[in-house]
């Protein structure tokens, strides 16, 4: 067990969560981060889906990495990812139908998520299955954290709710004589981009050595 949780592996796990965060530092996977974060629930499901798919495609590619013909390695990686995404998409449709409707095409678009292909090509092709699994989980979670933060802010300010539960009471609203108005901008993808920008700003301000 000592080897499984060695210092190097700890580093593999920790770095994508913070110093090498796929969204905040590498600026990958922005497309879906903007599209599915209007509410918290789809953001979490999307984050979990990406985590699961990255982890397992990493493991599979890592297991077969020595047999993959070099010339078609990208195709092999794509086929593995596409197969996993199709399976996850089918499972979502069968068990959380309303969320899969909300996520619509973005589940399918996980295939083209740069985080996945990036991790497969950069990590799983030259590391063992366990390290690759850790790397996949950590990168998926690093992506999910950003999605959850953005989803939280957008749902709270845009709809006045969290997980669909009303947080801002109706009596505060302008329509009902209060002085509060939901920020409709928050429901738009443009605002998500600004929020992601703010997260990157805060992240860099905190990690001074990342400033280029």
């Amino acid at each position, binding site marked *: 067990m000592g080897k499984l949780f060695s210092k190097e592996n700890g580093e593999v796990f920790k770095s994508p969560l913070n110093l090498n965060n796929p969204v905040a530092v590498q600026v990958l996977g922005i497309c879906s981060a903007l599209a599915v974060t209007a509410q918290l629930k789809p953001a979490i499901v999307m984050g979990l889906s990406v985590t699961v798919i990255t982890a397992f495609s990493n493991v599979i590619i890592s297991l077969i990495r020595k047999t*993959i013909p070099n010339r078609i390695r990208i195709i092999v990686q794509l086929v593995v990812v596409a197969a996993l995404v199709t399976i996850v998409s089918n499972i979502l449709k069968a068990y959380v139908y309303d969320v899969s409707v909300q996520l619509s095409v973005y589940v399918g678009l996980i295939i083209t998520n740069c985080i996945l292909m990036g991790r497969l090509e950069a990590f799983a092709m030259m590391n063992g299955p366990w390290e690759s699994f850790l790397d996949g989980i950590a990168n998926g979670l690093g992506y999910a954290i950003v999605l959850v933060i953005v989803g939280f802010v957008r749902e709270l300010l845009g709809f006045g709710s969290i997980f669909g539960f009303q947080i801002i009471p109706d009596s505060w609203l302008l329509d009902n004589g209060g002085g509060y108005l939901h920020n409709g901008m928050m429901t738009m993808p443009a605002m998500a981009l600004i929020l992601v920008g703010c997260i990157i700003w805060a992240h860099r301000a905190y990690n001074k050595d990342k400033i280029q």
Partner: protein
Amino acid sequence: MGKLNTNGNAYTIIYASIMVIIVAFLLAFVASALKPTQDENVANDKRSQILAALRIEKGSDYDVQAKYAELVKADPVYDGSASVKAENGGFAVENKNLTKDNRPLYVAETPDGKKYVIPMTGAGLWGGIWGYVALDDDCETVYGTYFSHESETAGLGARITELEFQSKFQGKKLFAGDDKSKIALSVVKKGKEGDISADNYVNGITGATLTSDGVNNMIQKGLSDYKDILDSLKK
């Protein structure tokens, strides 16, 4: 056995073939194993939409299938001459297959009396929209509506799915006064009502004029398409 030459042509081709076959079997297995559950979800979603038109709020906690079976008594399909071509099976007609010769109607018995639910489809600003309009058994008064969309703007056009907009249609009349020749029910922009009677219009959603127009066109066309059936039901 020495080290495999993983760069040879034969190896590459065989590798790709085996991989594709394995993946194909895997996906076919998953898809066929989950298909029944998925179809059930789609059907339940459609049931809950029809129930939403019958004033049973979507998303509230109830057993969709039981409630649907309790309320919706028949789903006949009508042909081009407004006669019933199938007593049942309207539910199986997908919205995209709605044609003049293939018009399902849902007949429901609610605590408020007999209702007819008419399915309809149209075009919004960015993509398709669809809906269900429930009518009282005088075939003139709207009992409830449900609208949904593929990809209208969140917070603007997408608000046609909200109860606040849908419930505005309750109690509105299809026809203007005694003129039963054409559907008068419409969605109009606030301030553009003109001389339309308050019984015949609903205000559109502010900031979503094109989606509102889409709903207007859908309602007018959808109800006009069913007018002969409604006439025959009235007799």
